[in-house]
């Protein structure tokens, strides 16, 4: 049994078929990349897994649980965490507070014990902070720890969003374009982190990314999508040389080995 199984999933927005009968499996411990031109339906696949959308047809199971029987806010409890293509952080809060929200699925105390700050709530807070400090150290965020998100540069925000997802200690991490808008050095850092997340933390990763350099460097398997349909699945090299993939990208100039171009 694979960690994540998507079977024959279809989603329509009115007349537009955003995801067309897509099936894929993410195995435990692997980095799985989803590539494709703009509007291919990659983010929509993520939003389906997150249960923001209801598919018209198909099945999505994670770790033996039928995700379609659950709501969006129950998805994290199975061990799925995600980032967003356009960064969705809590703007009026500090980096630390953002990461602490990532711990939400691990909370064990209720409103009453929070209000009176019971000893149990206190020790729970301490545990959350220990976990969050580890993420801060891992991602080198010490300097930004108590800064408000509102004033942070774009690159740092991307890292904070990764940190918030990591703080939830997921089994599967969904990264929607983790390197978009990042400088070459920042992209390199991101690649190292993704490798460490896979090998040292044992977290499986599914990512959407246009930077084929990053995709080739970190992913075990790649699936190419176009117009909601699967074009090819395999290693990065296999997918990049697949005729259907080359055709889909023809003229867009997007797919390249260095992968610096991005619409």
């Amino acid at each position: 049994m694979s960690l994540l199984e998507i079977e024959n999933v279809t989603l329509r927005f009115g007349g537009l078929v955003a995801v067309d009968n897509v099936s894929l499996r993410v195995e435990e411990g692997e980095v799985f990349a989803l590539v494709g031109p703009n509007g291919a339906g990659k983010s929509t696949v993520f939003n389906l897994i997150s249960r923001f959308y209801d598919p018209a047809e198909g099945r999505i199971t994670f770790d033996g649980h039928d995700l379609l029987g659950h709501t969006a806010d129950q998805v994290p409890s199975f061990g799925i965490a995600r980032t967003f293509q356009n960064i969705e952080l809590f703007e009026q809060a500090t980096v630390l507070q953002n990461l602490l929200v990532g711990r939400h699925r691990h909370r064990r105390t209720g409103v009453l014990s929070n209000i009176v700050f019971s000893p149990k709530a206190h020790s729970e807070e301490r545990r959350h902070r220990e976990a969050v400090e580890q993420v801060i150290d891992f991602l080198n965020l010490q300097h930004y720890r108590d800064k408000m998100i509102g004033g942070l540069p774009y690159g740092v925000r991307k890292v904070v969003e990764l940190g918030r997802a990591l703080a939830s200690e997921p089994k599967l991490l969904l990264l929607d374009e983790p390197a978009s808008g990042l400088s070459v050095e920042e992209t390199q850092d991101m690649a190292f982190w993704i490798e460490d997340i896979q090998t040292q933390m044992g977290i499986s990763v599914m990512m959407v990314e246009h930077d084929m350099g990053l995709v080739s460097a970190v992913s075990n398997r790649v699936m190419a999508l176009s117009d909601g349909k699967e074009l090819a699945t395999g290693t990065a090299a296999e997918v990049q040389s697949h005729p259907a993939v080359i055709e889909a990208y023809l003229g867009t100039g997007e797919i390249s080995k260095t992968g610096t171009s991005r619409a």
Partner: protein
Amino acid sequence: MRFVFKTSYDADIRLFKHRAQAVWYFLLLLLVLATPLYFVAIGDAYLLGEITGVLILAIAGMGLMLLTGHTGLPSLGHATFMALGCYLNINLLGAGIPWIIAFPLSGLIAGLLGTIIALPVLRLHGVYLALATLAMSILTSDFVVMAEPWTGGIAGAAVPDINIFGMEVNRYSTPYKFYYLVLFVAILLVWFYRNLLRTPTGRSFTAIRDSEISARAMGINLTRTKATSFFLSATAAGLAGALFGHSAGYVTNETFDLVMSITLLLMIVIGGLGFIHGAFFGAIVVGIIPVAIANGRSFLASTFDININIPGLESALFALILVGFILFEPMGLYGRWLKIRTYFELFPFYRKDMFKRQKSYLKTDRVQ
């Protein structure tokens, strides 16, 4: 500039960031505890009654601040929850239940009823939620009239005195006791509020305020969390309403009107949305304006023989002040205070744009 070295995880769980801060709040506590001494000395407790009124407003303000400032849900109907708390308190006391039980109970029931009323509108956003709560506020007076057996209707109802284990507390005959009682409730609620904000419950509120979509992606149940915030908010408003009743002595269908709901909202915006301090700063402003206008009037009349009798002057001044704040100081009075404090802490390194918020980046293609 002060650097806070973290020596343990407790460092930022604690109520006070550093010792100097704890000392300042301790001094403030001493000041508010000693305030009645001054009025005993001058032998006139009139102004102390006004200060008590400000504290009651601040309690209601904290309730609204939790909902609007920290959860991002506007309400133009908090006077309704104050009315609920007030009339519940009157009726529970009337049924012979001791104040020490009736008072918290009326807050809790007001919170519960408030949540039940609010559940259908919790799915609404921004201006729609504001309109729904506005409608509730408009209907309140009619409901008070309809529920005459419990509320006294248009004729109104007298609020029984407070009796705590035989100790009588009345705004006029024992103003000092009443002040300390209200102060105790206010401080207790501040402590609860601070605890909320440093634990998962409060963080889930602010998460919803800043991004509903990523709050959900982090496992926060929107409906349940909003309902929790509404419950706590309406409970605080209910408690404030009960105290307001004791302070007024007599309440009618016009006591908890729309103007009061609007005043509460203005108050927290002027004070500074998203800060507990904001509720207090706002309450002080709202408490001072009528006194200032009255004094200004009599000053003009006695010194220059100018008589100003413009009806609605207070509301107009309120509106002006609010517009001024939204235009020039969106972070409210507390924001202004933060800037002044930072200026002195960093002297002479303060930069003018230090508090400028960077323009936020693209928002996600909103998932509906």
